[in-house]
């Protein structure tokens, strides 16, 4: 289905001193843009670390080949001899300064080594403890200029980190660094879901002894108990307009999909099967829902109107397919595919119904698209421990992020920052 060309992309910088994740990239695209990320002038360990954030972000897409053809370190355009940097097609340089107010300011430029011209220059600044954000912003600018696609490195992800009996709901940068704990409980936490504006999360917590759905503002950390009906309250998923959520309740017996307003009013059941209907997720236009159901025997993915009504089965290959999520372009959906005892991340085209396996199998679950549709984040496992992985949406490049502590579960990629 696709050509797996495995090889390690060598990363520029040495391992950072305070890493909480180890990052490893495998695979490469057919056509890669060679780029040299020159060391920025300024505070050396810090500039190195920022450069490393940029390098990791770009490598993760599989679209870039990081090159260092020269050991020279020009910091100004006039110091650059373009011939030194071939075969790299692009070059970044710049300098980092600490401002009087304590903020960091990076002045950086992107140069085209073939045409020997500057593509653009930009100043990126942030508070001194937000130096990673500077790296992500630089990576976004480079990515956007050289590929024409919207960058996603400044977006955030959410997941559950379980360590012993402690369950933490966490948001982090798109590369898994910069964890911020939103909620910490001794009881399980499940199924985080981003509000479309990226300002709130809905999730399932067992803190009251059974599964109930909460929403929580990330800024104020204020929580709201959205659903505590008898039985299990689970699988929250926000509508694109942010006004309502699809949730799963089993107060009528089997687990069925309901709609509820974000303030907890206007509960309405919209699926009516004798089986389990769960994991609802809205299409980008809000008109339809994908969900998983065992109504046909095995667990498969179905689509129905977000007003309810009849459902169409979409998946037929493998023994089970579940955890569907729309590509933001609305043309494909990703999901977990189970066959022969292995879980794969797969992608299926709505029109052609062609299924493509994005991973080579293992314990791969809970995929979600980056908001630009170019990367898929999923839960994986190494030696019994849950980790994060990303795969490019063509399946060519994988990046694995291993936390130093805990067991990562239920990752989900957030929207563009607003």
């Amino acid at each position, binding site marked *: 289905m696709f050509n797996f060309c495995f090889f390690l992309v060598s990363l520029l910088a040495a391992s950072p001193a305070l890493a909480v994740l180890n990052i490893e990239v495998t695979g490469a695209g057919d056509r890669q843009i060679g780029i040299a990320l020159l060391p920025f002038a300024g505070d050396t360990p810090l500039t190195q670390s920022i450069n490393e954030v940029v390098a990791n972000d770009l490598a993760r897409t599989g679209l870039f080949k990081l090159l260092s053809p020269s050991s020279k370190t020009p910091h100004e355009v006039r110091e650059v001899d373009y011939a030194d940097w071939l075969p790299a097609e692009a070059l970044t340089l710049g300098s980092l300064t600490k401002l009087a107010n304590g903020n960091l300011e990076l002045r950086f430029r992107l140069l085209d080594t073939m045409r020997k011209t500057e593509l653009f220059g930009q100043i990126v600044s942030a508070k001194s403890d937000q130096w990673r954000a500077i790296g992500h912003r630089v990576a976004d600018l480079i990515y956007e200029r050289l590929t024409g696609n919207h960058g996603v490195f400044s977006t955030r992800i959410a997941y559950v980190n379980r360590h012993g009996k402690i369950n933490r709901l966490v948001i982090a940068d798109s590369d898994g660094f910069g964890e911020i704990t939103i909620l910490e409980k001794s009881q399980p936490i499940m199924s985080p879901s981003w509000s479309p504006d990226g300002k709130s999360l809905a999730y399932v917590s067992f803190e009251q*002894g*059974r599964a109930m759905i909460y929403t929580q503002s990330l800024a104020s950390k204020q929580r709201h108990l959205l659903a505590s009906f008898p*039985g299990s309250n689970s699988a929250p998923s926000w509508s694109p307009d942010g006004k309502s959520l699809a949730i799963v309740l089993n107060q009528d017996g089997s*687990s069925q999909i309901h709609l509820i307003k974000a303030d907890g009013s206007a509960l309405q059941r919209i699926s009516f099967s004798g089986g389990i209907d769960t994991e609802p997720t809205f299409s980008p236009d809000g008109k339809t829902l994908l969900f998983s159901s065992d109504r046909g025997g095995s667990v498969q993915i179905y689509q129905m109107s977000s007003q309810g009504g009849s459902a169409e089965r979409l998946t037929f290959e493998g023994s089970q397919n579940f955890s569907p999520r729309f590509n933001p372009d609305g043309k494909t959906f990703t999901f977990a595919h189970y066959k022969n005892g292995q879980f794969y991340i797969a992608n299926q085209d709505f029109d052609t119904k062609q299924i493509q396996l994005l991973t080579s199998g293992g314990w791969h679950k809970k995929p979600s698209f980056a908001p630009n549709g170019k990367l898929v984040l999923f839960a994986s496992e190494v030696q019994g421990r849950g980790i994060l992985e990303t795969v490019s949406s063509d399946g060519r490049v994988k990046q694995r992020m291993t936390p130093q502590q805990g067991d990562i579960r239920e990752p989900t990629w957030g929207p563009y920052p607003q």
Partner: protein
Amino acid sequence: MKKVALSFILVNLLTACASTQTPEASQAQQGAPATAETTVISGQATTAAENTASAGTVAVNSEAATGTQAASTEAAQTAALPGQTEQAATAAATQTAPGTTDAAQTAATTGTTDAAQTAPTTGTTDAAQTAPTTGATANNTADTAQSAGAAADIAVKRVHFEFDNDGIQEADKTVIQAHGAYLSLNPTVKVRVEGNADERGSSEYNLALGQRRANNTKKALTLAGAKASQIQAISFGEEKPVDTGHDEAAWAQNRRVDIAY
């Protein structure tokens, strides 16, 4: 639909050897406070059971109750306490078989003793499961004796399930019988049935599957004599494995319903 139908049949099978509860008995038990959706932690439930026993009040109308539920209040109280010693349970089992033949009584008693020694052959690691599986051992005796044996058997607080299935298994029916009878005799006792699933599939599907297992267990307990209002069915899905391994042995342990007083 197929699974639901199958489990319904299993439940019916359970009912066949369950002591039937008359409408009068149900009415007699309506006096107990109905707190169906209240979360009952085990400590509270135990206290409730002890109170019931020490006060000597068991809200079963002895005229209305039939079969083994017509057991003397004394026996019921003795049998009722969770965490009670095996000897006491055995004694209770013998007492709670009024109207059975001597042979049946003997069988029940013998069965209990044998089971206490041989039960661990199920290969499970949970301490609770090494308790006597009386009814199963004494299964060649009269139904009454079997039920009486089962009534002593609430030390086993866990039932297991096949992969992606929510039907109560034949091997677990005596456990269900025992808890159903116990709850019937102690209508003020509340219990949580906690459904669990192995880690295959999605966490949300497994939450739903665990809920279905819990709901089926609740239904089976109800058919075995408990009132629905005594039982809260909840699910932990794949979130609370008893064995964190990634193999069938671990998964088999994790596909379970825990009966938590």
